[in-house]
């Protein structure tokens, strides 16, 4: 056991490890020893696990700690050690490990995360939180999609433990495993490295993903936000599904599902079905619109004042909504119809009496006006509280209550504007590492270098040979103001 302990405690060595190269060498050697030990002395590790755990700190000796956990958990939990003990250690590890060190952990870490993500070992609420923390420890920027993300999202959504998963799900994903020209960096431990450089199949920290899995991740994220009624975020997530890049007129079933939900959520968050962003593949959108015809029609009816038409669209297609699993969302849409009608009045009126609102807007649930002015007032109150509507209900001298819309261009004060501007500027700053990583990736790709070299050569030779080809370059040199005296 002492021999084991000495090996396990050997990393990180005391002393200076700030240098990437030394760190890399030490960690690699340590991993090598650990895997050898796991293979040869697995039984010993299991037998002395309690003692070994006691001398190891998961935040310091993460790799060693993980090795013992691995020995305990795989292929199956040992019978002679209490399960709670192992699981407790597992959770401790997940919550505390050192992200930099574990970049070297590879497959064992992935297997551990998968075991947690399967939801069988730990209660779901604990599992979700542990996994989410682990993912962010490994990749604090959260910009890289891994197979663990997929597990986390589905576990959180299916077991309704959304809150703890949000720190991960809220992140903007911009990198994906298997990107070309992302050869592993020289030193994985380099703290300045973008997550895409050390999380890959090569380093064993994620599995290979397929396009359908990426789509599913975004779809599940969207549905997660739906469950929390965060329509804006849900819309953004579904939009990622809808605008997913396609080739050769391709389209996927998940995109169709996403498209339908995207329309419904757009109605809830923006009150209308907006056009897809310009980078969407045109042929795909055509296919989607054919398959999502019912939804497009519903959205078209949503923005009109014709409540009967909308109600008809919503009622007649009940079966479709049910089959697509969207009945709940449609119900929400129907319920919000009147709110959006009230909101549309602010384009026309500055002040309008409650009674007038009652007459002008109809509920899509009944297809008729509300019965009492009080109901309308309650509706408006709820809209104001939700922040959907900027206005106040006031009372006239003669007792008529009316809604006064605040100006839509109610401007922020200078301070607010400044603060907002600073905030967004800071957010833009945060994008820099992403740009840098992408720039680096693209600028060092073999094709680009080849092209750049060729382009360089061509420029020079052309100037001499064919004057017409270099026309663009020459026009700048031409003295367009020739007739005027130089000043």
């Amino acid at each position, binding site marked *: 056991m002492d021999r084991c302990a000495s090996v396990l405690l050997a990393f990180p060595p005391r002393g200076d490890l700030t240098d990437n190269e030394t760190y890399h060498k030490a960690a690699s050697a340590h991993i090598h020893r650990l895997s050898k030990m796991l293979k040869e002395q697995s039984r010993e590790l299991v037998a002395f696990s309690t003692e070994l755990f006691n001398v190891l700190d998961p935040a310091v000796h993460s790799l060693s700690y993980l090795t013992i956990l691995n020995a305990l958990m795989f292929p199956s939990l040992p019978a002679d050690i209490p399960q709670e003990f192992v699981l407790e250690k597992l959770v401790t590890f997940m919550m505390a490990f050192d992200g930099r060190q574990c970049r070297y952990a590879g497959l064992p870490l992935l297997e551990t995360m998968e075991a947690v993500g399967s939801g069988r070992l730990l209660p779901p609420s604990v599992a979700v939180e542990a996994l989410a923390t682990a993912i962010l420890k490994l990749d604090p920027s959260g910009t890289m999609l891994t197979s663990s993300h997929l597990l986390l999202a589905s576990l959180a959504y299916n077991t309704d433990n959304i809150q703890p998963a949000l720190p991960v799900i809220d992140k903007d994903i911009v990198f994906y495993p298997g990107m070309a020209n992302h050869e592993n960096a020289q030193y994985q431990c380099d703290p300045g490295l973008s997550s895409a450089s050390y999380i890959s199949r090569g380093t064993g920290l994620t599995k290979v993903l397929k396009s359908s899995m990426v789509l599913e991740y975004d779809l599940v994220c969207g549905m997660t936000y739906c469950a929390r009624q965060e329509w804006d975020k849900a819309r953004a997530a579904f939009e990622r599904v809808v605008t997913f890049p396609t080739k050769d007129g391709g389209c996927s*079933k998940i995109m169709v599902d996403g498209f339908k939900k995207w329309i419904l959520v757009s109605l809830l968050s923006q009150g209308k079905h907006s056009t897809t962003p310009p980078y969407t593949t045109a042929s795909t959108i055509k296919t989607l619109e054919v398959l999502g015809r019912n939804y497009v029609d519903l959205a078209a009816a949503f923005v009109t004042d014709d409540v009967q038409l909308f109600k008809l669209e919503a009622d007649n297609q009940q079966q479709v909504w049910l089959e697509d699993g969207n009945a709940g969302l449609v119900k929400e849409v129907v319920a919000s119809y009147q709110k959006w009608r009230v909101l549309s009045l602010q*384009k026309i009126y500055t002040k309008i009496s409650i009674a007038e609102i009652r007459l002008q807007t109809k509920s899509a649930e009944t297809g008729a006006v509300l019965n009492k002015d009080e109901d309308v007032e309650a509706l408006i109150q709820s809209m104001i509280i939700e922040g959907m509507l900027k206005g106040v209900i006031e009372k006239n001298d003669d007792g008529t209550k009316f809604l006064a819309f605040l100006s839509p261009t109610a401007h922020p004060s200078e301070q607010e504007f400044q603060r907002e501007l600073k905030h967004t500027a800071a957010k833009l700053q945060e994008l820099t590492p992403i740009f840098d990583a992408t720039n680096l990736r693209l600028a060092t790709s073999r094709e680009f270098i080849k092209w750049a070299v060729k382009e360089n050569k061509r420029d020079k030779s052309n100037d001499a040979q064919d004057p017409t080809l270099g026309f663009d370059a020459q026009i700048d040199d031409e003295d367009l103001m020739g007739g005027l005296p130089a000043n």
Partner: protein
Amino acid sequence: MASDQQNHLLAFFTAMENQGGVIVQDVPKLDLGLYIENYKGRSRFDRLLLIGQCSVPLCLDALKAAVIEAKQGKDVQRYRDAWECIRVAGPNEPEAQFDDAWVNATTKANKIFTHQLEAELKGYKNNLIKESIRIGHRDLGEHLESIGNLNGAADAYVKMRPDASTISHIVDVGRHIIGIMLQKRDWTGVLANVNKTMPPNMTAEEACHEQPYQKMVAGLAYLGSEKYAEAAKCFLETGDPKACKHYNDVASPNDVAIYGGLLALASMERDELQRKVLDNASFRNYLEREPQIRKAISMFVNCRYSACLEILERYRSDYLLDLYLQKHVSNIFSLIRKKCIVQYLAPFSCVTLDSMTAVFAKPGGSLETELISMIKSGALKARIDAIDKLLVMDSSDPRVAMQINALETIRSYEREALERVRRMSLAAADLEVRGTYRKGLGGGTGGAGGAGGLPGLGEILLDDGESGYGVEGLS
């Protein structure tokens, strides 16, 4: 007898209304005889028939005149059309008796004359004399046009073109072709051909003579295609009324004044109206013929909007009886009205609805609904205060707009930048969804029922069935 006649008229106009025609009940200000004297050519019959079909007070007079007009010509179909109308509207009139003898004789004569012209043309062609061939085609075309065979006439006119050698010939061809297109209401065709009636190498004198025709026709074509601003511009540039009178087979100088004035009112701002219409020396000659238009425009320029609208409204029934204007009257009038409202509000930041009603109220129509529709369509940048009965103009604060704009730009930049990087990464990772051009791939495995089997949608890629995620919504 009188009530009998009334019933016939009623039946006639009910039928007309069912066909989607415009019915004008009011007595128009125009005198039918004087009005039709302004025109010549085939346009006369069209105008008479239109008035007969639309105006209740002038119905019988116009139809009778139309029958007479048709019988003076050679077009049998026109006679039949006019007779069909008068047969219903006034069966007791002498013109309601179908003149079989005339029809037979004319048809026969037409046929013979057509053959004769065709034979002559063949002769000219054999002789290879260009001028004769051109004349032959022209004669044939004119004859075919006069008997109502417009397509044949258009063919014949087009064949004149290869043999046209001088500028006046080319102009002649263009004018004939445009004449046919006007009758067929082929506005794009007119616009495509209109420049051919004014070749660039004309002398100034010739051009001056041609300009009225060219501008008038182009104006009509723009009017027909609802491009009011362009149309107004054309009519305002028509030029000398005396030369214009020469082309009264198309429109009379009075028409030019009405079209130009109304369209300018509908499409121009106040200073533009003053500059381009009222101060326009050549157009003033036209306006003198239609003083009410000049008055309406000067009312508008002087901000007396209700008076302007009132004048126009008085002449609405006249304009509704015009061959080219009829379809556009309501459109143009509502444009002018909207402009009046917008102009009226321009100097105010806040107006009481009562004062607006005093100026613009229409019998039977609520001003508020009109305002609402204008606000909805974006024509009016204002909002209604239904409590204090005010119309409040939207104040624009450029600084706020700039600030909001700036924030929005940054946000959208951030969003789009991230999205673009994401797409690059997806492409680099080779993760795009691929289409398979193989059809009939539909019945694959996996939970994706239905979509694959749809006809024509074989490209839908069935996603792998290995996923454990349920695709469920909120339900």
